[in-house]
């Protein structure tokens, strides 16, 4: 069963990005003073992505969501959704209309209108947007309900069905006007795990059909199923590479790392670390690949490993205080973007996050053991001792 839809573009280029948030700042003012909830957020989401946004309560994720749905307006910055600048070009009422046609919103508490049957709830956005013929609307709504498995319940009021079914109906409603983008705020937050799974399956199917879905969630087992995970902490977005490389840090620590790392770009093939060089930086690969190269006995370079984005190097040396034993260089095909963290920062971080220390410790242990085993075979190559 495919959902009826008009057109979905699936090119992933910045120009055609579904969501483009630029330097968005949101400050709330109240009698107690000013409180900045979003501190200059930049975020791009391409068409067809299934993005999860994670953050603790108070981190600003709901505010961020409100920015992309046009529900709240930023203090400064720009939000462009599906090519439409939401805040400079549209007033509140126009945004409502725009939202109805371009955006499906799924809420944690379903938010079906209690006086309308499920079918009528699904038809309502079409009424507001004036899309589809009047007689076409019930047919289309019924198709959507069928898609989420609620055909039998279509005439019931929201009160009369389970919470899971309410959420499924809410998803059908979000799809009513066939919007290219669906924004879901903790869609499974109030559901048991089985129903939550049904919801995510539907989302995955929609993504496969070309929809873009952005979903806020608390649930780690859901973030694992999205194509991209964005962490927001204290009003700022955590560097995705940092989050991937050091998942055991808490969000605040990730954010600290995000702020402390420096970007370094290395042209293809150029060396990053030389043998015996003193290492005082922790490296995380953001883009491109690096090669670990060992000089063989005949002075011939042997590439013993390739590291890809989200992987890191330099940790063994930093922990053990040694010198580089191998050459690390950018792969010849493409330049490499690296994030670097100074030694002291790295060590402070390990101090603050025992889980990370343990995890890295295990990796170091592994690598050293691997190295030894290779060494015993006379091919010891691991650069760090």
């Amino acid at each position, binding site marked *: 069963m495919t959902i009826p839809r008009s057109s979905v573009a699936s090119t992933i280029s910045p120009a055609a990005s579904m969501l483009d948030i630029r330097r968005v700042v949101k400050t709330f003012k109240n009698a107690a003073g000013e409180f900045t909830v979003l501190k200059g957020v930049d975020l791009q989401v391409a068409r067809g992505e299934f993005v999860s946004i994670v953050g603790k309560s108070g981190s600003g994720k709901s505010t961020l969501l409100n920015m992309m*749905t046009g529900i709240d307006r930023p203090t400064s910055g720009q939000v462009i959704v599906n090519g439409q600048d939401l805040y400079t070009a549209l007033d509140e009422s126009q945004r409502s209309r725009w939202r109805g046609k371009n955006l499906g919103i799924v809420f944690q508490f379903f938010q079906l209108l209690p006086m309308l049957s499920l079918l009528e709830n699904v038809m*309502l956005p079409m009424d507001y947007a004036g899309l589809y013929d009047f007689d076409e609307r019930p047919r289309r709504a019924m198709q959507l309900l069928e898609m989420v498995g609620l055909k039998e319940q279509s005439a019931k009021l929201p009160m009369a069905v389970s919470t899971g079914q309410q959420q499924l109906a809410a998803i059908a409603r979000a799809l009513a006007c066939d919007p290219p983008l669906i924004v879901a705020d903790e869609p499974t937050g109030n559901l048991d795990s089985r129903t939550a799974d049904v919801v995510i399956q539907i989302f995955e199917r929609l993504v496969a059909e070309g929809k873009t879905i952005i979903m806020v969630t608390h649930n780690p087992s859901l973030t694992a199923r999205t194509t991209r995970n964005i962490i927001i902490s204290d009003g700022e977005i955590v560097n995705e590479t940092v989050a991937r490389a050091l998942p055991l840090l808490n969000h605040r620590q990730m954010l600290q790392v995000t702020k402390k790392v420096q970007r370094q770009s290395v042209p293809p093939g150029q060396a990053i670390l030389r043998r015996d060089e003193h290492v005082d930086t922790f490296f995380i690969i953001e883009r491109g690949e690096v090669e670990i190269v060992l000089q063989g006995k005949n002075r011939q370079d042997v590439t013993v490993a390739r590291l890809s984005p989200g992987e890191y190097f330099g940790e063994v040396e930093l922990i053990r205080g040694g010198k580089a034993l191998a050459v690390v260089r950018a792969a010849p095909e493409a330049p490499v973007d690296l994030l670097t963290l100074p030694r002291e920062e790295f060590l402070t971080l390990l101090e603050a996050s025992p889980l990370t220390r343990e995890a890295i410790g295990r990796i170091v242990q592994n690598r050293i053991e691997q190295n030894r085993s290779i060494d015993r075979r006379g091919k010891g190559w691991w650069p760090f001792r």
Partner: protein
Amino acid sequence: MRPRWRKVLLDLFENPTRTLLVVFSIAVGVFSIGVIAGAYVIIANDMSASYAANRPANIELRMDDFDRDFLPVIENAPEIGDVEPRRVFNIRARAANSQAWTTLDIVAIEDFDKNALNLLTPMQGQSKPARREIVIEREVLKEIDIQVGEDLVFQLPDGSEKTLRVVGIVQDPTTGADDFLAPPFAYITMDTLPTLRQPDLFNRIYATVQGNGNDAEYIRRVAADLKDRVEKNGVTVRRTRSALTNQHPLASTVNAILGILLALGVLIVFLSSSLIANTLAALLNQHLRHIGVMKLVGGRDKQVFAMYLVMILSFGLLALALAVPFGGIGAYALAEFIASQLSFNLLGYRIVPLAFVIQIVVGIFVPLVAGFGPVISGSRVSVLSAISGDLASETGSKPQPGAKRETLFERFENAVNAALLRRGIHLPRPLLISLRNTFRRKRRLALTLFTLTMGGAIFVGVFNVRTTLFAYMDNVGRYFVADVTLDFSRPYRLSEIEQVARQVPGVQYVEGWAFASAEILYPDGTVAENLVVLAPPAGSRLVDAEPVSGRWVQAGDTKAIAITEGILRSFPNLKPGDYLDVKVRGQQDRWQVVGLFKFIDREGLIAYGTYEYFSRETNLANRSVSFRVVTDRHDEAYQREMSEKLDKHFRDAGYQISQARPGLSALNNATESLDILVIFLLIMALLTAVVGAMGLTGTMGMNVLERTREIGIMRAIGAVDAEIMRMVIVEGMVIGLISWVLGLFLSIPITYGLSLIVSLAVFETPIEVVFTPLGYLIWLGLVILLSVLASVLPARNAARLTIREVLAYE
């Protein structure tokens, strides 16, 4: 102050709009009841007190002319106290600088210094005219634009004019107090009479009784004896009137009208109480979270109950502070208006203790009673439901334990939905939302509908009553078909007058009527009623009679009359065919009543006989003093024009014409006083409609407030401002229209009830109710307007909510 009382205090100011709504709802009731109760008491006291203060005569005799020598006959009559002879006659007058003639009743008093009965209250200038001066009653000012020091021009029967200087304005609350349609009075001394070509003779006696001046039976007996005595001494008594000392003759009418207003006032209190109940229920709903918090930290039902009871009391006190002063002022203003209409004086501004007490009772107890239910259920709410807020939001996100039974209404709703679905009919969802929202808060809807329906039904009822009254007046108009009435000072031959009248272009038809005045006697010989018999020729085209029972008089009738229903007051069992004992020109006679008809009785009853019989009885066969003229057009302006032409024509031809009156003028005078009554009723009806609209505004405000979140959702899925506003306004209009339909039905009993009370008060007889679509149509327009107005503000508020505010509730 303890925190909980501080909370109560601060809650009062937390939402000023809501507080004002509650306070106004209470205040409207308190105000109306205060105004009416206050006016009732003031009028009841002052009307009679001011009447009694002017020493009203208990007995008034209208007699043929008599001179001073005759006075002892009266003064020495048994049981008679003070006696004062006067001469009263009517004459046409105008201001010196105007050409508009008005008929005045001139009262000549022998000695103003010895004036002891029917006292005049000085208002401006002199109250005692000298020779060739005149003092006017203030009512004259309504007819003639004149000031003290200016001249009044009088037209004498021969057409010549005389001028008298106005030296003062007085008020005469007693003379003619029972007839607010009588011409206004002016006062001169006896020695001014010759100037106006009047003989120096009296024609009226005003007298008090020696005994109890408040015993109607006794006064009537004394009056009957006096009359006999006068007539035995050779002077004919044309009419006898008796009145109590301490009761204004119109007191019962006024009380009846005030009674209607009181009933409406009670209704407004009732309506405002449903408004209060509604608002308080919503307030409690909004405060559920607070109640939950208080219970969470240790508050018990009783404490919460006490807090909100104190809050309600505070609303009541605020309303009292607002309504009591205005109520007092309003009461006096209403009393003053009525007093000025009926020409009596109030004894001065004061606070009426009874009204004050009633207002306090209403202001305190009505809110307590209305708020009791909501407060009890509010203070009993459980912490869980209060904190989670699912009672307030109606979302059902947390399922309530236990499936609830489908109500009758829901079953009906489901059946309708199913029927629509079967036929594949889908109403547009935005309309569906409005419709279903209307019925979501059923108790609130019921209270709102009750208020609005009541207001509407009364409004429509008042229109129906108005139409009923005017239909009745039209009915009365059947007896006033003539366009011009010509009265002469002496009889003329019918053919002669007809011939002269036809010389005036436009005159189509002339008819001479005979007259007789008589007294209807009780079997014991005392006078029951004064009767005027009008006697047109049998088969006259100028009376379009419609007897309610029996038949109309016809050719060949002798000693037969058709009489007004007013006779039933004195003879409740009278039927057509019965006989009445009458006294005509001093002689007893027996007339048969052939039929009864409806009429406005003023200054005694009216009966119709045949010209043929009564002209012979009065020795005026083929002659008459009074003629009816039909012209070629019938509007009042033309009638007036023709009256003046005929007046001038006859005068120029040397006839002694006393007056020429347009036919509709008498009727219009009567209608005018009905208009005042209708305006009063309409004001009350509008007040109830306003209370209804306030109720609707409150309800819509509460509905919007409670559905804030839903409105946010609608915006989130693409509803624009206009859509949200339309949703709210349509809901308001649906409520308005439902109330209109209900009002259609409710207005029927209300119309009957109001008509009965009003007709009994005004005509002293029940009259046939007439319905008019006008009231229903006006109310339809008004209720749509009111419901749109009532919803616009809440709707605008709804549209202004940004989604963030709405969804930020979590």
